């Protein structure tokens, strides 16, 4: 039997990789893919906890995370398309009208 902490370690490492990708990539599409990576890490954690604690509520939560991820991908990619139409770029460091 694989111990629970191994799954938690795996999920943490994948989450940290997703955080790094989100904070340091230039391409906005890869940033969205990093968000998907983080959500997947959370799902691994939830489903492993649900298996080891013998409670299905974790999997229900993972189900809702997947639904929200689908909605987020649709909205995010629509924003990317709107950005293409106005600026013809996908690089986050070239979009600085707001002086952030």
């Amino acid at each position, binding site marked *: 039997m*694989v111990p*629970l*902490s*191994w799954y*938690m*370690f*795996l999920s*943490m*490492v994948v*989450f*940290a*990789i997703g*955080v*790094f*990708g*989100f*904070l*340091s*990539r*230039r*391409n906005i*599409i*890869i940033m969205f*893919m*990093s968000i998907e*990576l983080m959500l*997947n890490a959370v*799902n*691994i954690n939830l*489903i*492993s906890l649900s*298996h080891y*604690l*013998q*409670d*299905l*509520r974790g*999997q*229900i939560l*993972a*189900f*809702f995370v*997947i*639904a*929200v*991820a*689908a*909605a987020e*991908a*649709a*909205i995010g*990619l*629509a*924003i*990317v*398309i*709107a950005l293409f*139409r106005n600026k013809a770029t*996908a690089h986050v*460091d070239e979009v600085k009208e707001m002086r952030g």
Partner: protein
Amino acid sequence: MIQELFFAYFAFAIVVLSILVITRRNPVHSVLWMLLLFFHIASLYLFLNAEFMAAIQIIVYAGGILVLFLFVVLLMNIREEVRINKFIGAWPTGFTFAAGLLVVIIMSIKSFIAAPPGIYSIDLIKQETHTKVLGKLLYTEFLYPFEVASLILLVAIIGAIVLAKRRLKP
């Protein structure tokens, strides 16, 4: 022993594939590595006796979301993309933040105390089949969140259409 070996392979593959996803210069390669990553995560769910979640992972992520990503990636100029620097100038800050976050969460795992086990033991799930148990729970105890999730998807559809459509000429 064999379980640990399988887990070691899948954990190693998942970590390597996620690093490949965020470091490829060409976004199409990133999307294809991510497809492989999602299949590995789905097989990890099979280990955890969650067949329905594995199927959902492949159908929704690999079949739906990644195809959406691939459509948008093919809109952009890949020739320019492979020439330009792939990380922003402040990438060491991002790396430091991610590494610090990892260290903090790993330190917090020591104080994890497992709750008392619930009623859905592996035998019960095997006896009733996973999809049936999950469906019963989803349509009785979690009916209200389920309806809210459908509303979220409706809002996402309308929002995506409104954002992506061309402005009408006044």
